[in-house]
């Protein structure tokens, strides 16, 4: 583990260099502990795959004290990937109509569309990070057979709810946005709703399963085509 300066009031802790459930669990544990021990000297934190950005109030503390909190916290971390997060099932309408890249992805992978859907929906994914946009959860890792490089030209407009694959990551777009991931379906569940409580169905450390649904069910659940 390695602590680096990030900016005038932030340090970043590196727990590893790869996507790994054990490392991700340590990031979560460290975030929870630091939130308690730093109390109101903490401004914000950004947990990601293998790092934790810690932003502190430089008028209430300093980087020496924050480094001490980090050292003490890291010394007490467990070494098991305890699955504390909840399991969330997200329904997905997979089809050429809702996922314009589904057929090309299957063709490139030398699989049938049905096999791609089965492989994507039989795995359990971990929420490694939330960022890019509010509610955008980075889920990993997809089976290598259906991993797919980003589009060479990103789309200007990806619809809300688009279920997508990029390399070995998968995600559901929480809002209409530009994007270069391969679109394979649509999820009717809102991934970010400022009016709802909680605003997001998932948080970092949770596990996600995708459950295939038919067109009629997608529409009945409030999905829009």
């Amino acid at each position: 583990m390695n602590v680096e300066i990030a900016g005038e009031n932030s340090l970043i802790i590196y727990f590893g260099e790869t996507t790994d459930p054990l490392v991700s669990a340590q990031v979560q544990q460290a975030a929870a502990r630091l939130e308690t021990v730093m109390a109101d000297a903490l401004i914000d934190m950004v947990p990601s795959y293998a790092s934790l950005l810690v932003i502190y109030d430089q008028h209430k503390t300093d980087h020496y004290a924050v480094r001490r909190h980090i050292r003490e916290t890291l010394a007490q971390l467990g070494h098991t990937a305890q699955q504390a997060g909840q399991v969330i099932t997200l329904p997905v309408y997979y089809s050429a109509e809702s996922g314009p890249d589904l057929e090309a992805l299957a063709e490139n992978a030398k699989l049938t569309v049905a096999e791609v859907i089965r492989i994507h929906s039989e795995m359990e994914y971990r929420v490694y990070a939330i960022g890019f946009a509010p509610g955008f959860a980075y889920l990993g890792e997809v089976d290598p057979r259906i991993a797919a490089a980003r589009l060479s030209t990103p789309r200007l407009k990806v619809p809300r709810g688009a279920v997508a694959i990029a390399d070995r990551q998968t995600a559901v777009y929480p809002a209409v946005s530009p994007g270069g991931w391969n679109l394979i379906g649509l999820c009717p569940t809102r991934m970010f709703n400022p009016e709802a409580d909680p605003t997001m169905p998932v948080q970092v450390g949770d596990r996600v399963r995708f459950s295939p649904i038919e067109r009629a069910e997608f529409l009945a659940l409030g999905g829009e085509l």
Partner: protein
Amino acid sequence: MSGFLVKQPGLLTLIQDAGRYGQHRIGLTTGGPLDGEAFNWANRLCGNELDASGLEVSIGGLVLEAQVDTALAVTGADMPFKINGQDVARWCTHKVKAGDKIELGFATSGSRAYLTVAGGFNVDQSFSSTATVTREAVGGLSGDKLKQGDLLPCQAHSPTELWALPESEQPDYNADVTLRVILGYQHQTFDSVQQRLFFSSEYALSSRADRMGFRLEGQPVKSQLNGILSEGICHGAIQIPADGQPIVLLNDRQTIGGYPKIGSVISRDTAHLSQRMPGAKIRFEEISLEKAHNINCLAQRRFINMSLQQIA
């Protein structure tokens, strides 16, 4: 509640408070005023708390009509400022009455002005802040920039004292900018030659500059890494993509990104950067984290202890 009616919204006028904190874990960015110094002075001139809600007026073109008697102040960029058609000074408090017309013309120096009223605008918080981030459709009146016909609610106020910031404290937005940088993040992946190139070259501010980040153009700098596992990005972080051209990330940055970063610009300097127009010349200077803490702590003491001039 009454307040100020938006007759003309200007090019980009946003409701801002001190920013949105503690929400990065659901992917929400910070928002808040790009030039925090000018914003803080505007609130102090109105006797407000520093997190009161005011307006960030980019480039200009704002016309408001007061529906209440109160006091207001304008700081930041030099925009022709008129009350009922009369030129009035920035960096000081003015009394206004219901029916008064408040106009901010287009910036002649700097690019962002801050307008605050006594007591602040009374806007509902979303995610513990009123800061508007249009990309996320969060904050402000409806997650968007001001529109004609919007009402900016505030309470009537009868100010007994009016204040001005001494001229010696008012910034010069035409001065050259040297951005003080704390080395950090992936700085070791920029070898000593690349670091020397970076700190000895002059960059120009590109026209691709918005509240997410300011792109600079000039001497390319290369990291030995192409990309990194996506990680949190702090305010002021200098991201260097494969084309070698630095991007200084600001208030509306995305919370997570995957480009190598050489370090971060201190917030006092991003404030001055944000006032510059495309083409402005920019240099970087390395400082230590200790020096940055000293600069920021002393600046805070100076802000707290600086006396405003009473003008009425």
